[in-house]
């Protein structure tokens, strides 16, 4: 017994103007095949080249959309009626969805993805011939967006490869200026860029790599006030930060806003990478619920970093970002990758989601962004002092120190940096005892003599000062701003690092 298919207005020219056609078959698919056999002009409008029903063709069995039944395999009974109902859709050119509506595109309907121009097809041809990427994958990348927090060591290679790969929109948050000391690893910036804003330099570099990519720049310090707004338009967040408060902030903001965090960090010769905040995956706090005490883990500026290391880690972050966008492969979720450049070894730790995690656990206690400086135990900066004035009784300035040295005062200058730093620059007449050796060597110092402690910028020397006070030194001052301030205000002939 035949079934009836109702034909929508635009297809009636192909059915001799008939509003319905009688067809036979046991499933929806068979009825449609019978229909297109009888009226072959219909086929190209109902089916895409790959043989699947076009996504804007809705087929209803009686009143039920077959997508919610067994699609074309849905069995039909005598008397069942099929209706073809057009989805009518369209839109303006320039097909990237606006940021507010951007969603992870991994599962996106290929028909709704932006098209590639001839030039783009040529540019991405090595992607297009791989089935794991292909046309649809490349269009997904074009529809995707990533926010790089930081345009430094990690952000540089990550953003460059993401741009080259054709990710449609790349946002960058940074507020720094390019310095000579960045050039050893931050390849977004070149020698002529020194002194420029990192964002301007990054934008130029990414545009030159791939003009099809939209680059958004945010010249601001990421904060609890702006993080959620900044993250909102992007599919993936790429953490290229270099300090703990921002790292916890990025983690929490990713969990709260439900966005994956392609995480990386580097120190000296070792790098780490993972994907946090993915659905059902652990977050950074599942691994490190509490930050380390301030000063325990030195920054790259203090501890140094092997220049090629961020190249490896940043590109791992970019790799994970692209995999998330394409929905291919095994993401680095629940796995913590540790790379040792000296040994040239990768290790992998298993990470589990902590049900007690204060952010992503079953009963989270952190449901909005907090004060991360305070969380990491960092005291607010003291109010600015007039240049040249001693800030407090435990502090002195390079200008004041120079004046006293010139006046012949008896001051012992203790430099607590590492020997290789001391080789680069120093305050004349200073004595080197690295911070780590101080507890066993402080007795080399004369507790009766006035001591000025210094390091590169004033952080490590503040710790040395606390320690020396605890063991009975009382005539002791920290050199504010360290050797860098000394070079800036007293002796510009020495190199800075």
């Amino acid at each position, binding site marked *: 017994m035949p079934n009836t298919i109702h034909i*929508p*207005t*635009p*297809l*009636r*020219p*192909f059915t001799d103007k008939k509003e319905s056609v009688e067809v036979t078959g046991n499933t929806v698919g068979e009825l449609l095949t019978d229909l297109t056999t009888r009226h072959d*002009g219909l086929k*190209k*409008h109902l089916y895409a080249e790959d043989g699947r029903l076009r996504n*804007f063709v*809705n087929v*209803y069995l009686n009143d039920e*959309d077959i997508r919610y039944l067994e699609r074309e395999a849905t069995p039909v009974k005598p008397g069942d009626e099929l*209706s073809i*109902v*057009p*989805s*009518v*859709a*369209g*839109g*303006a*050119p*320039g*097909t*990237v*969805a*606006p940021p*507010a*509506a951007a969603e992870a595109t991994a599962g996106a309907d290929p*028909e*709704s993805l932006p*098209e590639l121009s001839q030039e783009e097809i040529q540019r991405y041809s090595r992607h297009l011939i791989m089935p794991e990427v292909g046309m649809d994958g490349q269009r997904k990348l074009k529809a995707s967006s990533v926010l790089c927090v930081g345009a430094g060591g990690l952000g540089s290679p990550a953003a460059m490869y993401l741009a080259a790969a054709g990710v449609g929109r790349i946002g960058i948050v940074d507020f720094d200026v390019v310095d000579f000391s960045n050039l050893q690893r931050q390849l977004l910036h070149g020698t002529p860029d020194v002194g420029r804003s990192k964002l301007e330099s990054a934008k130029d570099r990414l545009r030159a790599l791939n003009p099809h990519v939209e680059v958004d720049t945010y010249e601001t310090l990421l904060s609890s006030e702006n993080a959620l707004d900044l993250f909102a338009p992007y599919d993936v967040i790429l953490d290229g930060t270099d300090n703990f408060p921002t790292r916890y902030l990025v983690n929490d903001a990713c969990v709260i806003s439900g966005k994956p965090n392609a995480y990386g960090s580097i120190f000296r010769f070792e790098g780490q990478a993972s994907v946090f905040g993915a659905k059902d995956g652990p977050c950074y706090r599942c691994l490190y619920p509490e930050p380390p005490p301030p000063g325990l883990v030195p920054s790259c500026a203090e501890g140094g970093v092997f220049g090629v290391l961020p190249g490896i880690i940043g590109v791992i972050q970019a790799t994970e970002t692209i995999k998330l966008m394409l929905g291919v492969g095994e993401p680095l979720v629940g796995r913590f990758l540790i790379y040792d450049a000296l040994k040239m070894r990768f290790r992998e730790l298993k990470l589990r989601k902590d049900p007690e995690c204060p952010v992503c656990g079953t009963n989270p206690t952190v449901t909005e962004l907090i004060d991360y400086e305070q969380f990491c135990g960092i005291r607010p900066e003291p109010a600015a002092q007039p240049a040249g004035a001693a800030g407090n009784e435990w502090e002195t300035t390079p200008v004041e120190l120079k004046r006293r040295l010139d006046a012949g005062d008896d001051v012992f200058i203790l430099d607590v940096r590492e020997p290789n730093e001391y080789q680069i620059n120093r305050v004349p007449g200073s004595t080197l005892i690295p911070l780590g050796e101080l507890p066993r060597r402080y007795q080399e110092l004369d507790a009766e003599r006035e001591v000025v402690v210094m390091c590169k910028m004033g952080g490590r020397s503040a710790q040395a000062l606390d320690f020396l006070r605890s063991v009975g030194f009382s005539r002791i001052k920290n050199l504010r701003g360290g050797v860098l301030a000394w070079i800036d205000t007293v002796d510009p002939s020495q190199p800075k690092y």
Partner: protein
Amino acid sequence: MTTLTLRSGVADAIRGHGAETYPDECCGALIGREGVVTDTYSLPNMTEEGPRRRFRVRPADYREAERQAAAGGAELLGFYHSHPDHPARPSQYDLDHAWPFFSYVIVSVCGGVPEDMTSWRLKDDRSAFDQEDLTNAEHDSHPHASPPLHG
């Protein structure tokens, strides 16, 4: 070249709808007979991809529009939509989602002000649109100026 004629008030209704939903896209059905649009039927834009650049008509609304047309002894001739701050030319996305036979009227709305209006029909091989002459019943001899599609 086929011709689509808009009866008095139809063009104004489409422009008005485009201005009303600006900066989002508007959409609606064109109802009439034999190449003459006598009525429009504004529809809610149900896109889930951001209405600034997209529109979508729900299947239920489509069926209702077809029913309304038949009830009045007319037929569904096509759909109109607006391109906020973009020219009145069909996009690749429009082409990918186009149905044969229908006229697709596009009105460009720049900064909230409706400007060019054009009409398009899908080529039978789905490769592109052909532009239609768009005339107002009152001004039959002055087809609306519009940029060419082929290039």
